[in-house]
Protein backbone atom coordinates (compact mmCIF):
# COMPACT_ATOMS: atom_id res chain seq x y z
CA UNK A 1 0.00 0.00 0.00
CA UNK A 2 1.21 3.52 -0.74
CA UNK A 3 2.84 5.29 2.16
CA UNK A 4 4.47 8.68 2.50
CA UNK A 5 8.13 8.61 3.37
CA UNK A 6 7.42 10.15 6.74
CA UNK A 7 5.20 7.20 7.57
CA UNK A 8 8.05 4.76 7.30
CA UNK A 9 9.85 5.84 10.41
CA UNK A 10 7.49 7.47 12.77
CA UNK A 11 5.91 7.38 16.20
CA UNK A 12 2.42 5.97 16.65
CA UNK A 13 1.28 5.83 20.25
CA UNK A 14 -2.12 4.98 21.66
CA UNK A 15 -2.83 6.18 25.19
CA UNK A 16 -5.31 3.89 26.85
CA UNK A 17 -6.35 3.41 30.44
CA UNK A 18 -8.92 3.88 33.14
CA UNK A 19 -11.43 6.72 33.15
CA UNK A 20 -9.66 9.86 34.44
CA UNK A 21 -6.30 8.10 34.54
CA UNK A 22 -4.66 10.94 32.63
CA UNK A 23 -4.76 9.64 29.06
CA UNK A 24 -5.70 12.94 27.46
CA UNK A 25 -3.25 14.96 29.54
CA UNK A 26 -0.35 12.68 28.67
CA UNK A 27 -1.37 12.45 25.02
CA UNK A 28 -1.41 16.25 24.78
CA UNK A 29 1.95 16.56 26.49
CA UNK A 30 3.48 13.86 24.33
CA UNK A 31 2.16 15.46 21.16
CA UNK A 32 3.55 18.85 22.19
CA UNK A 33 6.89 17.30 23.10
CA UNK A 34 7.19 15.79 19.64
CA UNK A 35 6.11 19.07 18.11
CA UNK A 36 8.94 20.81 19.93
CA UNK A 37 11.32 18.33 18.37
CA UNK A 38 10.01 19.67 15.06
CA UNK A 39 8.01 16.59 14.20
CA UNK A 40 4.77 16.84 12.39
CA UNK A 41 2.21 15.60 14.92
CA UNK A 42 -1.42 14.54 14.68
CA UNK A 43 -3.37 14.23 17.93
CA UNK A 44 -6.50 12.10 17.62
CA UNK A 45 -9.39 12.20 20.08
CA UNK A 46 -10.75 8.65 20.11
CA UNK A 47 -12.86 8.98 23.23
CA UNK A 48 -16.08 7.37 22.09
CA UNK A 49 -17.69 7.10 25.51
CA UNK A 50 -17.73 10.78 26.28
CA UNK A 51 -15.99 12.94 23.70
CA UNK A 52 -17.84 15.97 25.01
CA UNK A 53 -15.68 16.19 28.07
CA UNK A 54 -12.24 15.65 26.64
CA UNK A 55 -10.21 17.52 24.07
CA UNK A 56 -13.07 19.50 22.58
CA UNK A 57 -12.61 22.73 24.56
CA UNK A 58 -8.84 22.61 24.03
CA UNK A 59 -8.89 21.91 20.30
CA UNK A 60 -8.27 25.46 19.19
CA UNK A 61 -5.55 26.08 21.77
CA UNK A 62 -3.71 22.95 20.67
CA UNK A 63 -4.04 23.85 17.03
CA UNK A 64 -2.53 27.24 17.79
CA UNK A 65 0.41 25.38 19.25
CA UNK A 66 0.94 23.70 15.89
CA UNK A 67 -0.74 20.35 16.44
CA UNK A 68 -3.05 18.81 13.92
CA UNK A 69 -6.02 17.82 16.08
CA UNK A 70 -8.63 15.33 14.93
CA UNK A 71 -11.69 15.54 17.08
CA UNK A 72 -14.91 17.43 17.47
CA UNK A 73 -14.74 21.13 18.01
CA UNK A 74 -17.61 22.94 19.72
CA UNK A 75 -19.03 24.11 16.38
CA UNK A 76 -19.14 20.53 15.06
CA UNK A 77 -21.08 19.50 18.10
CA UNK A 78 -24.32 21.22 17.04
CA UNK A 79 -27.19 18.82 16.99
CA UNK A 80 -25.66 16.30 19.34
CA UNK A 81 -28.24 16.01 22.05
CA UNK A 82 -26.54 13.45 24.19
CA UNK A 83 -22.91 12.96 25.01
CA UNK A 84 -21.99 12.77 21.39
CA UNK A 85 -20.42 9.32 21.37
CA UNK A 86 -19.18 9.22 17.87
CA UNK A 87 -16.25 8.78 15.62
CA UNK A 88 -15.22 11.09 12.83
CA UNK A 89 -14.05 9.74 9.48
CA UNK A 90 -10.83 11.69 10.00
CA UNK A 91 -10.16 9.66 13.14
CA UNK A 92 -10.85 6.40 11.37
CA UNK A 93 -8.28 7.21 8.71
CA UNK A 94 -5.82 9.03 10.97
CA UNK A 95 -2.93 6.68 10.21
CA UNK A 96 -3.07 7.75 6.57
CA UNK A 97 -1.79 11.16 7.60
CA UNK A 98 1.82 12.17 7.59
CA UNK A 99 3.83 12.50 10.74
CA UNK A 100 3.66 11.12 14.26
CA UNK A 101 0.25 10.00 15.45
CA UNK A 102 -0.83 10.24 19.08
CA UNK A 103 -4.15 8.53 19.77
CA UNK A 104 -6.07 9.51 22.89
CA UNK A 105 -8.30 6.47 23.43
CA UNK A 106 -11.22 6.84 25.79
CA UNK A 107 -12.09 4.42 28.54
CA UNK A 108 -14.70 1.71 28.29
CA UNK A 109 -15.38 -1.99 28.74
CA UNK A 110 -13.84 -2.75 25.36
CA UNK A 111 -10.40 -1.44 26.34
CA UNK A 112 -7.86 -1.51 23.53
CA UNK A 113 -10.44 -2.88 21.09
CA UNK A 114 -11.26 0.76 20.31
CA UNK A 115 -8.20 0.61 18.06
CA UNK A 116 -10.26 -1.64 15.77
CA UNK A 117 -11.88 1.62 14.69
CA UNK A 118 -8.63 3.05 13.36
CA UNK A 119 -7.86 1.68 9.93
CA UNK A 120 -4.51 -0.04 9.86
CA UNK A 121 -3.75 0.43 13.58
CA UNK A 122 -2.99 -3.18 14.34
CA UNK A 123 -1.10 -3.64 11.10
CA UNK A 124 1.10 -0.64 11.83
CA UNK A 125 4.63 -1.71 12.76
CA UNK A 126 4.98 1.51 14.73
CA UNK A 127 1.96 1.22 16.99
CA UNK A 128 2.70 1.17 20.71
CA UNK A 129 -0.21 0.82 23.10
CA UNK A 130 0.58 2.60 26.33
CA UNK A 131 -1.54 2.01 29.41
CA UNK A 132 -1.69 4.99 31.75
CA UNK A 133 -1.94 4.00 35.40
CA UNK A 134 -2.75 6.28 38.29
CA UNK A 135 -2.40 4.10 41.38
CA UNK A 136 -4.37 6.66 43.38
CA UNK A 137 -7.56 5.80 41.56
CA UNK A 138 -9.60 3.19 43.43
CA UNK A 139 -10.05 0.92 40.40
CA UNK A 140 -6.26 0.65 40.07
CA UNK A 141 -4.95 1.19 43.59
CA UNK A 142 -3.49 -2.23 44.32
CA UNK A 143 -1.24 -4.65 42.50
CA UNK A 144 -4.10 -7.14 42.02
CA UNK A 145 -6.49 -4.54 40.72
CA UNK A 146 -3.98 -3.15 38.23
CA UNK A 147 -3.10 -6.62 36.96
CA UNK A 148 -6.78 -7.51 36.54
CA UNK A 149 -7.37 -4.20 34.82
CA UNK A 150 -4.46 -4.59 32.41
CA UNK A 151 -5.53 -8.13 31.53
CA UNK A 152 -8.95 -6.80 30.57
CA UNK A 153 -7.49 -4.12 28.32
CA UNK A 154 -6.14 -6.52 25.72
CA UNK A 155 -2.85 -5.77 24.03
CA UNK A 156 -0.61 -3.41 26.02
CA UNK A 157 2.98 -2.69 25.01
CA UNK A 158 4.08 -0.56 27.95
CA UNK A 159 2.75 1.25 30.97
CA UNK A 160 3.14 4.83 32.05
CA UNK A 161 3.27 5.58 35.75
CA UNK A 162 1.01 8.56 36.31
CA UNK A 163 0.08 8.39 39.98
CA UNK A 164 -1.05 11.76 41.26
CA UNK A 165 -3.75 13.57 43.25
CA UNK A 166 -4.19 16.64 41.10
CA UNK A 167 -3.39 19.80 43.05
CA UNK A 168 -2.61 17.80 46.17
CA UNK A 169 0.25 15.84 44.66
CA UNK A 170 3.60 16.00 46.42
CA UNK A 171 6.97 14.36 45.92
CA UNK A 172 6.51 11.65 48.54
CA UNK A 173 3.26 10.62 47.00
CA UNK A 174 4.69 10.41 43.47
CA UNK A 175 7.49 8.20 44.73
CA UNK A 176 5.35 5.94 46.88
CA UNK A 177 2.26 5.48 44.76
CA UNK A 178 4.19 4.67 41.60
CA UNK A 179 5.99 1.79 43.33
CA UNK A 180 2.93 -0.39 42.77
CA UNK A 181 3.01 0.43 39.06
CA UNK A 182 6.63 -0.65 38.86
CA UNK A 183 5.98 -3.96 40.58
CA UNK A 184 3.00 -4.66 38.35
CA UNK A 185 5.11 -3.94 35.28
CA UNK A 186 7.77 -6.29 36.53
CA UNK A 187 5.22 -9.01 37.31
CA UNK A 188 3.70 -8.74 33.83
CA UNK A 189 6.99 -8.28 32.00
CA UNK A 190 5.97 -4.88 30.65
CA UNK A 191 8.30 -1.91 30.31
CA UNK A 192 7.50 1.33 32.10
CA UNK A 193 8.00 3.94 29.40
CA UNK A 194 8.19 6.84 31.78
CA UNK A 195 6.93 8.39 34.97
CA UNK A 196 4.74 11.44 34.46
CA UNK A 197 5.18 14.18 37.04
CA UNK A 198 3.53 17.59 37.26
CA UNK A 199 6.09 20.17 36.18
CA UNK A 200 5.40 22.07 39.39
CA UNK A 201 7.24 19.25 41.18
CA UNK A 202 10.27 19.35 38.88
CA UNK A 203 12.69 20.32 41.65
CA UNK A 204 11.25 17.99 44.23
CA UNK A 205 11.12 14.90 42.04
CA UNK A 206 14.43 14.79 40.20
CA UNK A 207 14.68 12.36 37.31
CA UNK A 208 17.30 10.18 38.95
CA UNK A 209 14.81 9.01 41.56
CA UNK A 210 13.40 6.55 39.04
CA UNK A 211 15.00 3.83 36.91
CA UNK A 212 13.09 5.10 33.85
CA UNK A 213 12.79 8.57 32.32
CA UNK A 214 10.64 11.14 34.08
CA UNK A 215 8.53 13.45 31.96
CA UNK A 216 7.40 16.72 33.50
CA UNK A 217 3.82 17.37 32.55
CA UNK A 218 2.02 20.65 32.09
CA UNK A 219 -1.63 20.24 33.00
CA UNK A 220 -3.98 21.40 30.25
CA UNK A 221 -7.09 19.40 31.06
CA UNK A 222 -8.29 21.43 34.07
CA UNK A 223 -8.88 24.17 31.50
CA UNK A 224 -11.15 21.91 29.49
CA UNK A 225 -14.03 22.14 31.92
CA UNK A 226 -14.59 25.84 32.28
CA UNK A 227 -14.50 27.02 28.68
Amino acid at each position, binding site marked *: MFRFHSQIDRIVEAYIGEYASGKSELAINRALELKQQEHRVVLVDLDTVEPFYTLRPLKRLLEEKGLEVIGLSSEDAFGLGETGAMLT*PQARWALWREGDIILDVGY*GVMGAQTLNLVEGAYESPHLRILAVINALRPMTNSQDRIVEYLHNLGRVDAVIANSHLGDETDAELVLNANRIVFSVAQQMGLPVDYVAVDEKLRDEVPGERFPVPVKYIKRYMPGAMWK
Partner: protein
Amino acid sequence: MTVSPAVPKSWYLPSKPHKFCPGCGHGIVLKALGEVIDELNIQDKTIFGCDIGCSLLSWNFFNCDSTQTHHGRTTPVMVGIKRSRPELVTIGYMGDGGGYSIGSQHLLNAAVRNEKVTLILVNNTNYGMTGGQMAPTTLPGQKTETTPYGRDTDVTGYPTKGPEFLNALTQDDAYIARATVSNYRQLKRFIKNALRNQIEGHGFSFVEVLSTCPTNWRTNAQQTLHFLEDEMEKYFPVGELKNPLGKGDK
Protein backbone atom coordinates in the same frame (compact mmCIF):
# COMPACT_ATOMS: atom_id res chain seq x y z
CA MET B 1 -27.30 6.51 -20.61
CA THR B 2 -28.54 8.43 -17.62
CA VAL B 3 -27.22 7.96 -14.16
CA SER B 4 -29.71 8.50 -11.35
CA PRO B 5 -28.54 11.09 -8.85
CA ALA B 6 -26.66 9.61 -5.92
CA VAL B 7 -28.21 12.04 -3.51
CA PRO B 8 -31.98 12.02 -2.92
CA LYS B 9 -33.70 15.27 -3.84
CA SER B 10 -35.33 15.32 -0.42
CA TRP B 11 -31.99 15.48 1.41
CA TYR B 12 -30.98 18.76 2.99
CA LEU B 13 -27.59 19.35 1.40
CA PRO B 14 -26.13 21.94 3.81
CA SER B 15 -26.21 19.24 6.50
CA LYS B 16 -24.00 16.96 4.41
CA PRO B 17 -21.65 15.27 4.90
CA HIS B 18 -23.70 13.88 7.72
CA LYS B 19 -22.37 13.37 11.22
CA PHE B 20 -22.91 9.65 11.70
CA CYS B 21 -19.78 7.63 12.43
CA PRO B 22 -17.99 5.80 9.62
CA GLY B 23 -19.63 2.42 9.17
CA CYS B 24 -22.85 3.43 10.94
CA GLY B 25 -26.04 2.10 9.36
CA HIS B 26 -28.14 5.24 9.89
CA GLY B 27 -26.89 6.79 6.65
CA ILE B 28 -28.10 3.77 4.68
CA VAL B 29 -31.54 3.87 6.27
CA LEU B 30 -31.86 7.60 5.65
CA LYS B 31 -30.71 7.22 2.06
CA ALA B 32 -33.41 4.62 1.46
CA LEU B 33 -35.96 6.84 3.15
CA GLY B 34 -34.86 9.83 1.07
CA GLU B 35 -35.22 7.88 -2.16
CA VAL B 36 -38.67 6.68 -1.11
CA ILE B 37 -39.78 10.23 -0.26
CA ASP B 38 -38.63 11.26 -3.74
CA GLU B 39 -40.33 8.35 -5.49
CA LEU B 40 -43.61 8.89 -3.68
CA ASN B 41 -43.26 12.64 -4.27
CA ILE B 42 -44.21 13.52 -0.69
CA GLN B 43 -41.41 15.92 0.25
CA ASP B 44 -43.81 18.85 0.71
CA LYS B 45 -46.20 17.05 2.98
CA THR B 46 -43.77 14.97 4.99
CA ILE B 47 -43.21 15.68 8.68
CA PHE B 48 -40.06 14.00 9.87
CA GLY B 49 -39.75 13.60 13.64
CA CYS B 50 -36.70 12.26 15.41
CA ASP B 51 -35.97 11.04 18.90
CA ILE B 52 -32.98 11.65 21.14
CA GLY B 53 -29.91 9.49 20.73
CA CYS B 54 -28.05 8.90 17.49
CA SER B 55 -31.33 9.23 15.59
CA LEU B 56 -31.18 12.88 16.64
CA LEU B 57 -28.38 13.40 14.10
CA SER B 58 -31.06 13.05 11.43
CA TRP B 59 -32.77 16.21 12.68
CA ASN B 60 -31.71 18.34 9.72
CA PHE B 61 -31.02 15.46 7.36
CA PHE B 62 -34.01 16.08 5.07
CA ASN B 63 -35.23 19.11 3.25
CA CYS B 64 -38.63 18.36 4.77
CA ASP B 65 -40.38 19.88 7.74
CA SER B 66 -38.72 18.25 10.70
CA THR B 67 -39.13 18.28 14.44
CA GLN B 68 -36.95 16.97 17.21
CA THR B 69 -38.94 15.54 20.06
CA HIS B 70 -37.70 14.14 23.36
CA HIS B 71 -36.42 10.92 24.91
CA GLY B 72 -38.85 8.24 23.72
CA ARG B 73 -41.61 10.72 22.88
CA THR B 74 -41.41 10.80 19.10
CA THR B 75 -44.37 8.45 18.66
CA PRO B 76 -46.94 10.54 20.59
CA VAL B 77 -45.69 13.75 18.96
CA MET B 78 -46.17 12.22 15.50
CA VAL B 79 -49.58 10.90 16.54
CA GLY B 80 -50.58 14.42 17.61
CA ILE B 81 -49.49 15.83 14.26
CA LYS B 82 -51.18 13.10 12.21
CA ARG B 83 -54.48 13.33 14.10
CA SER B 84 -54.48 17.10 13.64
CA ARG B 85 -53.56 17.04 9.97
CA PRO B 86 -54.35 13.61 8.44
CA GLU B 87 -53.23 14.79 5.00
CA LEU B 88 -49.61 15.02 6.20
CA VAL B 89 -47.24 12.07 6.01
CA THR B 90 -45.69 11.59 9.42
CA ILE B 91 -42.46 9.67 9.85
CA GLY B 92 -41.16 8.96 13.33
CA TYR B 93 -37.49 8.00 13.44
CA MET B 94 -36.06 6.46 16.59
CA GLY B 95 -33.56 4.05 18.04
CA ASP B 96 -34.12 0.83 19.93
CA GLY B 97 -33.80 2.59 23.30
CA GLY B 98 -36.29 5.30 22.42
CA GLY B 99 -38.74 2.88 20.85
CA TYR B 100 -38.51 -0.29 22.95
CA SER B 101 -37.49 1.16 26.33
CA ILE B 102 -38.33 4.69 27.34
CA GLY B 103 -40.98 5.04 24.62
CA SER B 104 -42.32 1.50 24.68
CA GLN B 105 -45.70 2.38 26.16
CA HIS B 106 -46.24 4.88 23.35
CA LEU B 107 -45.21 2.38 20.68
CA LEU B 108 -47.47 -0.30 22.11
CA ASN B 109 -50.50 1.97 22.46
CA ALA B 110 -50.05 3.66 19.10
CA ALA B 111 -50.06 0.19 17.54
CA VAL B 112 -53.16 -0.86 19.50
CA ARG B 113 -54.99 2.31 18.41
CA ASN B 114 -53.87 1.72 14.84
CA GLU B 115 -52.45 5.24 14.60
CA LYS B 116 -51.81 6.08 10.97
CA VAL B 117 -48.18 7.01 11.36
CA THR B 118 -45.03 5.43 9.97
CA LEU B 119 -42.36 4.59 12.49
CA ILE B 120 -38.82 3.57 11.58
CA LEU B 121 -36.82 2.10 14.42
CA VAL B 122 -33.09 1.51 14.07
CA ASN B 123 -31.81 -1.48 16.05
CA ASN B 124 -28.06 -1.43 16.66
CA THR B 125 -28.14 -3.39 19.94
CA ASN B 126 -26.97 -0.55 22.16
CA TYR B 127 -27.45 3.04 23.33
CA GLY B 128 -25.00 4.64 20.96
CA MET B 129 -24.95 8.27 21.84
CA THR B 130 -24.94 8.01 25.61
CA GLY B 131 -21.79 5.96 25.25
CA GLY B 132 -22.72 2.35 24.56
CA GLN B 133 -24.98 1.08 27.32
CA MET B 134 -27.23 -1.98 27.15
CA ALA B 135 -30.32 -1.57 25.00
CA PRO B 136 -33.46 -3.74 24.99
CA THR B 137 -31.98 -5.32 21.85
CA THR B 138 -28.52 -6.11 23.21
CA LEU B 139 -27.77 -9.74 22.38
CA PRO B 140 -27.24 -12.32 25.13
CA GLY B 141 -23.65 -12.19 26.34
CA GLN B 142 -22.93 -8.93 24.52
CA LYS B 143 -20.66 -6.52 26.41
CA THR B 144 -21.81 -2.95 26.86
CA GLU B 145 -20.92 -0.22 29.34
CA THR B 146 -23.73 -1.35 31.67
CA THR B 147 -23.22 -5.06 31.03
CA PRO B 148 -19.44 -5.08 31.50
CA TYR B 149 -19.47 -8.84 32.05
CA GLY B 150 -21.82 -9.51 29.11
CA ARG B 151 -25.63 -9.36 29.03
CA ASP B 152 -26.92 -11.87 31.56
CA THR B 153 -30.39 -12.98 30.46
CA ASP B 154 -31.19 -14.18 33.99
CA VAL B 155 -30.98 -10.57 35.13
CA THR B 156 -32.13 -8.60 32.10
CA GLY B 157 -34.22 -11.04 30.08
CA TYR B 158 -33.85 -11.60 26.37
CA PRO B 159 -33.64 -9.01 23.57
CA THR B 160 -36.89 -7.34 22.58
CA LYS B 161 -38.40 -8.57 19.34
CA GLY B 162 -40.32 -5.47 18.39
CA PRO B 163 -41.98 -6.39 15.08
CA GLU B 164 -43.13 -9.70 16.57
CA PHE B 165 -44.85 -8.07 19.53
CA LEU B 166 -46.35 -5.31 17.41
CA ASN B 167 -47.59 -7.96 15.01
CA ALA B 168 -49.49 -9.58 17.87
CA LEU B 169 -51.05 -6.25 18.84
CA THR B 170 -52.21 -5.03 15.46
CA GLN B 171 -54.96 -5.95 13.01
CA ASP B 172 -54.69 -6.75 9.34
CA ASP B 173 -54.44 -3.14 8.18
CA ALA B 174 -51.12 -2.53 9.91
CA TYR B 175 -47.79 -2.90 8.17
CA ILE B 176 -45.04 -4.57 10.22
CA ALA B 177 -41.58 -5.49 8.94
CA ARG B 178 -37.98 -5.97 9.89
CA ALA B 179 -35.29 -4.94 7.43
CA THR B 180 -31.53 -4.86 7.54
CA VAL B 181 -28.96 -2.43 6.19
CA SER B 182 -27.18 -5.43 4.66
CA ASN B 183 -30.01 -5.73 2.08
CA TYR B 184 -30.59 -2.23 0.67
CA ARG B 185 -33.22 -3.08 -1.97
CA GLN B 186 -35.34 -4.94 0.51
CA LEU B 187 -34.89 -2.17 3.11
CA LYS B 188 -36.06 0.42 0.62
CA ARG B 189 -39.03 -1.71 -0.42
CA PHE B 190 -40.13 -2.17 3.20
CA ILE B 191 -39.85 1.55 3.94
CA LYS B 192 -41.84 2.33 0.79
CA ASN B 193 -44.54 -0.13 1.79
CA ALA B 194 -44.66 1.37 5.28
CA LEU B 195 -45.19 4.84 3.85
CA ARG B 196 -47.71 3.71 1.24
CA ASN B 197 -49.66 1.98 3.99
CA GLN B 198 -49.98 5.31 5.78
CA ILE B 199 -50.68 7.35 2.66
CA GLU B 200 -53.36 4.93 1.49
CA GLY B 201 -55.03 5.29 4.88
CA HIS B 202 -54.70 1.73 6.09
CA GLY B 203 -53.08 2.15 9.45
CA PHE B 204 -50.09 1.80 11.73
CA SER B 205 -46.84 1.18 9.88
CA PHE B 206 -43.63 0.02 11.44
CA VAL B 207 -40.21 -0.98 10.15
CA GLU B 208 -37.40 -2.08 12.41
CA VAL B 209 -34.03 -1.86 10.69
CA LEU B 210 -31.10 -3.96 11.86
CA SER B 211 -28.15 -1.62 11.73
CA THR B 212 -24.49 -1.30 12.63
CA CYS B 213 -22.62 0.56 15.36
CA PRO B 214 -18.90 -0.10 14.87
CA THR B 215 -17.97 2.76 17.19
CA ASN B 216 -19.59 1.21 20.23
CA TRP B 217 -19.06 -2.37 19.12
CA ARG B 218 -15.37 -1.50 18.62
CA THR B 219 -15.37 -3.51 15.41
CA ASN B 220 -13.52 -3.06 12.16
CA ALA B 221 -15.42 -3.29 8.87
CA GLN B 222 -15.25 -7.07 8.61
CA GLN B 223 -16.23 -7.67 12.24
CA THR B 224 -19.08 -5.18 11.88
CA LEU B 225 -20.65 -7.00 8.95
CA HIS B 226 -20.10 -10.33 10.65
CA PHE B 227 -21.97 -9.15 13.74
CA LEU B 228 -24.85 -7.81 11.66
CA GLU B 229 -25.27 -10.74 9.30
CA ASP B 230 -24.26 -13.66 11.48
CA GLU B 231 -25.30 -12.60 14.97
CA MET B 232 -28.12 -10.07 14.68
CA GLU B 233 -29.92 -11.47 11.66
CA LYS B 234 -29.88 -14.90 13.27
CA TYR B 235 -31.59 -13.61 16.38
CA PHE B 236 -33.86 -11.08 14.66
CA PRO B 237 -35.42 -12.65 11.52
CA VAL B 238 -35.73 -10.24 8.61
CA GLY B 239 -38.95 -9.98 6.60
CA GLU B 240 -42.47 -8.61 6.39
CA LEU B 241 -44.69 -9.82 9.21
CA LYS B 242 -47.81 -8.06 8.01
CA ASN B 243 -48.46 -6.34 4.69
CA PRO B 244 -51.98 -5.15 3.87
CA LEU B 245 -50.82 -3.90 0.46
CA GLY B 246 -50.78 -7.43 -0.88
CA LYS B 247 -48.12 -9.36 -2.68
CA GLY B 248 -48.53 -7.57 -5.97
CA ASP B 249 -47.28 -4.30 -4.56
CA LYS B 250 -43.73 -5.28 -4.03
